[in-house]
């Protein structure tokens, strides 16, 4: 049935247009032959089409626009008539002979517009006459369109100040009076419409009313465009009269829409100066009116105004805009007990944005807004509505965006209290927002106290809030979050060592609550942060032994031991080993031999007891060798113990090639370039020979198994080590041994039993080229290469 309704409507519209066009055709002919009588007759018949009740507002508007266009031609004809000497007053009388009232009034308005233009009568009188006579149409749709026509044709003829239709005295008031009267009548027609027709069509009627709303609202636009409406006139007449209409009509749709219109069409300055009046109307509206949206829009407008120029800010202060808005919101929330939480958040969010724009220096205002919000939330548990939580995130993000500085936001005492009403997921989102803000602005958090406060805000990322770990968290998301925490920890810094030490202790306290999944992310940045302080203290070199109270490297190393130890329970032995080695190196640079030795011991224990995966072992042993090579703090005995163990571990790796590589790497432990007492050529050679033996064994194994390749590469690698030590002047490395190694490799590469290894061929060829190059270069190094034959 509904589709039939739509089809029927199309038919009626088509019929209406046809009738209109036919009469317009005859009207044109009459106009072309200057036949006034026929022109009036056909225009009246044409306008009769607008008497239909069968069209929805949209369709009616289409018909109306066609009639409207035709009437412009008639209007021009009237103007020409007037120019030709025809009396407009007579014309004004003449059109009143039209049989039907609706066509008559359209014609009257059209002539009236020419009448005002001719200035044969004061605009005021003609307008008054027209607006009074329009009362003759009481059908809402027809009446609204007729009055909208009147409003449109009179639009540029209002006796505004400076207008050519300006009268003698109080002329703007006449213009305002006319528009207000038209507005009042239109609003009545519009509101009354809901009570007309059967109750079952109420929904359809409300939809149609909604479509018609702009016809009513346009009057407010016209008022705002009247230049003579200054603040005084607006405050004393326009706003009170409009609001009276709004409040008294007691209609939800009209009230919400018209409040929105008032806010949008009148200028910001006027709103500021009439806040009391405007806000005073809010509690008088129907309880079902969506006041939060109305108020939010008002505050948004004013916020934008405040943001537009600092010059306007004094206006806000002068009228105490903040306290007025704050009060109004308080009252609305108090009055509407059932307002959903999303409404409450929206209101406070708008108010907060407002105060941030208008009073950026008044943190207490911002805190007050948050405080009121907390008060409203208290006792209600966590916010469950997801739209509301989104709004809360927006609310809490506003101060960060405004100040670009978390340190300022940390001063808002109610900030963390708001966070408590968010579920753990949203808490994490908020924490991420906070961290991003810090990273974006590279804000350095300078004191332990602020670090403490900050951890309070982001605790959603630091620990499992409801006690149990959340299984549903996506692995990727979790990594992302924890990486951001890690980045954050790097942002804590203070040039004062004592304060920095406090910061480190604070961070430690918090991250240790994070549990085994978080620690591998959070421990490393803290360790490096502490090591940074160690290096700073070492560089200052003031009071290296320190007294009890002050921060010393030693004290930090104790702390570091505790921090890294927690990784053992995770367990994360590989990570712990790396960190121990980092610490050992730092202790080395501080000349703290026992400390460095202790870290190495810890690393060795981990290696022996916890790291069992063969690949992990390979990585670990190379890290150990690399670090140990750089250590200079150890005495002979300690160093011997550590290198002995390292070579021992190397030879015990699972796979032969791994053994080989680790063992030849150990050769560097006995030859340190810049230390004269660390050049033990003999033990270097022992390592290399041992590596050769392992490579041999590997070679035999691969021959036995066939297929497995790569062992010749080991020989080439060892050859490179030989060359290295040859260059460095290790007397144990002889040209003869290099020579025989080259021959060995050449033979192996050409042997039938080995499968071709292009990479190894290339590696070997490059090595030989290098030897050539060094020979040609000459000098001290070249001499050592002299007798090698390639």
């Amino acid at each position: 049935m509904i589709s039939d309704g739509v089809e029927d409507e199309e038919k009626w519209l088509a019929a209406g247009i046809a009738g209109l066009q036919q009469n317009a055709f005859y009207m044109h002919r009459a106009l072309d032959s200057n036949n006034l009588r026929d022109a009036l007759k056909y225009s009246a018949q044409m306008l009769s089409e607008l008497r239909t009740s069968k069209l929805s507002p949209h369709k009616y508007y289409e018909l109306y626009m066609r009639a409207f266009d035709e009437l412009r031609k008639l209007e021009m004809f009237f103007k020409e008539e007037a120019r030709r000497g025809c009396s407009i007053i007579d014309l004004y009388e003449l059109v009143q002979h039209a049989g039907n009232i609706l066509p008559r009034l359209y014609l009257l308005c059209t002539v009236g517009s020419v009448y005002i233009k001719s200035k044969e009568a004061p605009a005021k009188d003609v307008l008054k006459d027209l607006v009074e006579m329009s009362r003759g149409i009481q059908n809402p749709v027809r009446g609204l369109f007729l009055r909208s026509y009147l409003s449109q044709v009179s639009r540029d003829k209002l006796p505004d100040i400076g207008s050519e239709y300006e009268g003698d005295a109080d002329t703007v008031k006449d213009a305002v009076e006319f528009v207000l009267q038209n507005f009042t009548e239109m609003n009545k027609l519009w509101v009354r419409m809901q009570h007309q027709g059967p109750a079952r069509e109420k929904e359809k009627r409300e939809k149609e009313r909604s479509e018609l709303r702009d016809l009513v609202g346009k009057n407010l636009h016209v008022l705002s465009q009247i230049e003579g409406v200054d603040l005084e006139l607006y405050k004393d007449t326009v706003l009170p009269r409009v609001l009276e209409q709004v409040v008294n009509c007691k209609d939800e749709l009209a009230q919400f829409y018209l409040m929105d219109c008032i806010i949008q069409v009148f200028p910001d300055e006027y709103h500021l100066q009439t806040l009391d009046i405007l806000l005073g109307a809010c509690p008088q509206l129907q309880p079902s009116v969506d006041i939060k949206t109305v108020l939010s829009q008002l505050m948004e407008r004013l916020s934008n105004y405040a943001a537009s120029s600092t010059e306007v800010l004094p206006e806000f202060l002068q009228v105490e805009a903040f306290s007025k808005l704050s009060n109004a919101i308080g009252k609305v929330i108090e009055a509407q007990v059932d307002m959903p939480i999303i409404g409450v958040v929206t209101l406070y969010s708008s108010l907060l944005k407002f105060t941030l724009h208008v009073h950026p220096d008044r943190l207490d205002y911002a805190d007050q807004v948050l405080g009121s919000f907390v008060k409203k939330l208290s006792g209600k548990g966590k916010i469950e509505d997801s739209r509301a939580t989104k709004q809360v995130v927006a609310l809490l993000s506003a101060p960060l965006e405004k100040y670009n500085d978390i340190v300022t936001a940390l001063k808002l005492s109610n900030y963390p209290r708001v966070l408590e009403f968010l579920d753990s997921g949203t808490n994490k989102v908020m924490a991420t927002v906070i961290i991003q803000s810090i990273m974006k602005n590279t804000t350095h958090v300078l004191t332990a106290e602020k670090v403490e406060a900050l951890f309070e805000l982001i605790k959603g990322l630091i620990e499992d809030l409801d006690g149990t770990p959340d299984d549903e968290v996506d692995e990727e998301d979790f990594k992302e979050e924890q990486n951001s925490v890690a980045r954050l920890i790097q942002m804590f810094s203070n040039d004062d060592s004592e304060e920095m030490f406090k910061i480190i202790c604070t961070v430690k306290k918090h991250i240790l609550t994070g549990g085994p999944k978080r620690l591998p992310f959070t421990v490393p940045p803290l360790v490096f942060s502490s090591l940074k302080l160690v290096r700073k203290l070492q560089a200052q070199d003031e009071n290296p032994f320190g007294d009890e109270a002050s921060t010393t490297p030693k004290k930090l190393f104790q702390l570091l031991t505790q921090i890294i130890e927690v990784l053992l329970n995770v367990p994360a032995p590989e990570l712990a080993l790396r960190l121990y080695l980092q610490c050992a190196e730092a202790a080395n640079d501080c000349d703290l031999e026992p400390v460095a030795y202790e870290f190495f011991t810890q690393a060795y224990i981990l290696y022996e007891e916890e790291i069992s995966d063969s690949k992990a072992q390979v990585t670990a042993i190379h890290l150990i060798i690399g670090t140990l090579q750089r250590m200079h703090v150890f005495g002979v005995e300690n160093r011997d113990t550590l290198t002995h163990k390292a070579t021992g571990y190397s030879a015990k790796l699972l796979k032969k090639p791994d053994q080989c590589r680790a063992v030849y790497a150990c050769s560097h432990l006995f030859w340190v370039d810049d230390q004269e007492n660390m050049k033990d050529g003999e033990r270097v050679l022992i390592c290399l020979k041992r590596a050769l033996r392992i490579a041999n064994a590997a070679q035999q194994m691969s021959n036995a198994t066939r297929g497995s390749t790569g062992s010749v590469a080991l020989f080439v690698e060892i050859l490179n080590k030989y060359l290295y030590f040859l260059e460095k002047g290790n007397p144990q490395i002889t040209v003869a041994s290099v020579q025989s190694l080259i021959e060995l490799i050449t033979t192996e590469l050409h042997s039938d039993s080995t499968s071709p290894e292009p990479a190894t061929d290339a590696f070997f060829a490059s090595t030989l080229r290098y030897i050539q190059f060094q020979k040609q270069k000459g000098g001290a190094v070249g001499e050592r290469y002299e007798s090698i034959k390639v």
Partner: protein
Amino acid sequence: MPSRRRTLLKVIILGDSGVGKTSLMNQYVNKKFSNQYKATIGADFLTKEVQFEDRLFTLQIWDTAGQERFQSLGVAFYRGADCCVLVYDVNSMKSFDNLNNWREEFLIQASPSDPENFPFVVIGNKVDVDGGNSRVVSEKKARAWCASKGNIPYYETSAKEGINVEEAFQCIAKDALKSGEEEEIYLPDTIDVGSSNQPRSTGCEC
């Protein structure tokens, strides 16, 4: 004698909220400007007489609401437009990006007989703001877009300072006049030579 119809030229101004449509119209018609932002509701026109090649025309300039929620009755007033003015704010990229939507929406709703050649004019307004320092849409970019849409004439204006407004509307009037938009020609099925043409509609006399 020229046809009566051709002396009225209908122009529609479209563009995002706050780009200065109403201000441009007020500056052109009334030589007035207000810095205050006032939203427009529905559609609304002002007229201005213009002289062109010794003939007098009435320019009917339709100002429209940029905010969708203030356009509840639809856009039936697009019908019969002779020229469409697309306005953006040179300090707002979004308002420039939306020109395309406004243009397409206009062509769909107004359905002119020859959409390819329907006259548009683009205006980049508010060139005065902050001495041009807050500008984000370059003239080059705007001109490139205009060129890509069939060489739409382009003007940069300041409704506030009255810069280029007159020139832009001169062009608008000229293009509106040139526009081949003929009103649909209506011929009645039967030409009633008698004079007793009764109104079709019946019903009450209200």
